[in-house]
């Protein structure tokens, strides 16, 4: 980025970002500066990429006209702790309207790749068309700016994600990497393929400790372009730490915003894994395809219950004091750390254990690890498999696939292996399409084609308005447990005023776990980048970016009918959940009326994208 020091948010056109566009079909590479049109483009992430996608007409996520935008946020690669995010944006094979058209989507991941991309001299990489052979994109810094080339990638095919990264690391020891796994190579049979991003820890240990741009099948889109990996090689370019950023980083590493994700021995609550205990108070931990029973089984996956079995180490991406990764290792007889097994975050852990009826941790960690190895989104893969388990439990005489049902860890593992290697395309298309083909969509836990994360929909009527996954783009998934307010007024406000603002960090380049409030985030842009932005200006830009996401959904055929809940929520309220069953059809209809009264107006008033030429 070229930013005039103390530039203000009111003059985005004086800010330029550095973009590389690759026509993969021709091998043509174009690099240049692009002026920003508004504050969202200055901030970056999906605030910029969605404006690019808005200029395209795409009817098939795997068609050549679907571009993939790989970009960073303004704080990616900066000294601000957690400023590590990379964003992958495209029309998604998984997120589709009822018309079948693909919807715009982004997925974000940490690791060190984004920083290296920025230090190599690029803010954005646009991939057009499809290479006729598997390639790796190599981006390297030079005195005359970033150098970009395409190299053959045949030698990487078939390798697990982390194996690909380690192979590339041997060739490029000063680089970091993005890579797809076997799932992305078999993209036509696995729509929820993800993109792995390398961490220092992975390169140092050789263990599968990738970070993930998981949601929405961005790995499938990258695979459809025959891009197997991306290499970003550059010298680390961290400026001298200013007193202001030092103070901010101290707040991030030790303040209340990240305490939930920090380790217990550092005054934290132990990571997202520790959601189990408070949610179980209300019987809100998903069990057996999002149907909590109140039988106490979730307690078997409480972190405290597994401390004797495993050594749990808190590790990080790069220069991050939060150490949110809760990696589990074998515990040797003398109590010391043995072999690495898997990373236990709440989402993959729940969706592959309690929500699949699997309660033995020695059955669970191989499932979590295998999904990572193969390069799939553990949420979409887990939730789609949980639908299959439920279907088979309901149809014991005519099961589908291998007949797996709840608790069949070996058969679940078989399903994961097969879908991740392209052998089960019906399963790999996600729960929306699969459930419609099976004629039983009511208990498919998805909204708009994206599978739900591990929070029961019975307590979150905000899910349908999430534009990039239910717990990444609409902060309403925990509110019933947190505040218990089920009034219509509360929910309209929760969705239209507060919930949508959680996408802020997906413009800025920082991690949600940093826990910055809006004032801190705005202040950090001035302190670290020299961009003077008021909190109100930041909120306005974030809100506009979100509304543009809804506009893009409408462009792809979404109507009000697309914004609904799994019918089971309306028709079969779960008596085990300790909360008022308030998400009735009548409540939801009234909520929709009021939410759309707000959003429709803002969509109508959205400033047009003035430059119609794709840049």
């Amino acid at each position, binding site marked *: 980025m070229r930013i005039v020091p103390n530039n203000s948010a009111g003059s985005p056109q004086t800010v330029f970002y550095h973009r590389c566009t690759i026509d993969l079909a021709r091998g043509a590479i174009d690099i240049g500066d692009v002026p920003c049109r508004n504050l969202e483009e200055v901030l970056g992430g999906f605030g910029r990429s969605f404006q690019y996608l808005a200029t395209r007409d795409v009817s098939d996520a795997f068609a050549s006209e679907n571009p993939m935008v790989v970009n960073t946020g303004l704080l990616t690669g900066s000294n601000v702790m957690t400023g590590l995010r990379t964003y992958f944006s495209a029309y998604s094979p998984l997120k589709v309207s009822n018309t079948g058209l693909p919807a715009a989507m982004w997925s974000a991941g940490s690791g060190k790749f984004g920083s290296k991309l920025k230090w190599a001299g690029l803010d954005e990489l646009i991939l057009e068309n499809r290479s006729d052979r598997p390639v790796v994109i190599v981006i390297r810094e030079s005195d005359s700016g970033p150098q970009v080339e395409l190299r053959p990638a045949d030698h990487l095919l078939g390798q697990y994600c982390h194996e690909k990264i380690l192979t590339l690391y041997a060739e490029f020891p000063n680089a970091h990497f993005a890579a797809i796994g076997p799932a992305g190579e078999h993209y036509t049979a696995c729509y929820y393929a993800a993109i792995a991003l390398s961490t220092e820890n992975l390169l140092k240990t050789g263990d599968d400790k990738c970070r993930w741009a998981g949601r929405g099948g961005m790995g499938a889109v990258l695979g459809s372009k025959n891009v197997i990996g991306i290499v970003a090689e550059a010298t680390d370019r961290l400026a001298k730490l200013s007193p202001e950023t030092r103070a901010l980083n101290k707040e991030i590493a030790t303040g209340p915003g990240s305490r*939930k*994700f920090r380790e217990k021995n550092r005054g934290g609550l132990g990571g997202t894994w520790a959601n189990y205990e408070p949610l179980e108070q209300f019987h809100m931990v998903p069990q057996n395809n999002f149907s909590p029973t109140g039988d106490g089984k979730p307690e078997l996956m409480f972190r405290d219950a597994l401390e004797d079995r495993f050594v749990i180490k808190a590790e990080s991406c790069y220069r991050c004091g939060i150490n949110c990764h809760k990696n589990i290792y074998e515990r040797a007889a003398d109590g010391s750390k043995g072999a690495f097994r898997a990373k236990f975050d709440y989402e993959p852990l729940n969706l592959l254990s309690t929500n699949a009826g699997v309660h033995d941790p020695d059955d669970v960690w191989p499932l979590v690890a295998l999904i990572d190895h193969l390069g799939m989104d553990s949420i979409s893969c887990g939730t789609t498999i949980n639908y299959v388990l439920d279907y088979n439990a309901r149809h014991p005489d005519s099961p589908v696939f291998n007949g797996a049902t709840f608790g069949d860890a070996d058969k679940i593992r078989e399903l994961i292996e097969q879908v991740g290697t392209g052998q089960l395309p019906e399963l790999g298309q996600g729960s929306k399409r699969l459930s419609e083909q099976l004629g039983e969509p009511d208990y498919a836990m998805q909204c708009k084609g994206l599978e739900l994360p591990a929070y029961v929909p019975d307590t979150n009527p905000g899910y349908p308005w999430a534009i990039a996954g239910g717990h990444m783009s609409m902060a309403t998934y*925990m509110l019933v447990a*947190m505040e*218990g307010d089920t009034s219509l007024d509360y929910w309209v406000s929760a969705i239209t005023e507060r919930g949508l603002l959680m996408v802020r960090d997906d413009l800025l380049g920082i991690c949600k776990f940093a*826990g910055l409030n809006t004032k801190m985030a705005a202040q950090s842009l001035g302190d670290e980048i020299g961009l003077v932005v008021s909190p109100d200006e930041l909120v306005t830009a974030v809100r506009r970016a979100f509304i543009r996401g809804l506009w893009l959904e409408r462009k792809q055929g979404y109507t009000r009918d697309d914004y609904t809940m799994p019918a089971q929520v309306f028709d079969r309220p779960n008596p085990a959940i300790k909360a008022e069953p308030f998400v009735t059809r009548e409540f939801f209809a009234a909520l929709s009326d009021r939410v759309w009264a707000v959003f429709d107006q803002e969509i109508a008033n959205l400033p047009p994208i003035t430059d119609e030429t794709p840049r």
Partner: protein
Amino acid sequence: MSESSAPQHLSNAVRIRLPALFADRIDGVSAVEVTATTVAGALRALTDRHVALTTLVWTGGGALNPVMVLFLNDRQLSGTGITHTLHSGDRLEIIPAIEGG
């Protein structure tokens, strides 16, 4: 941003640090100074001043919200910690036990 209305010379002036969930509901105030002799008193002073935080801190029955966790001087308080006595200069934090990722 921190907010202080408790005269600094008063005894039992304590500072309550707030995560973004709270701060973004009260115009970015991320720390509040109150005067109180117990944790419960400090939290009551917080919500008296910032009514928008009431449903985050308290249940309808007036008990501490069961999904909130308290830290006093960086040490987690147990379930009964709300009756804990405070001393001048103490640092209190309240954070939600549920957050995604």
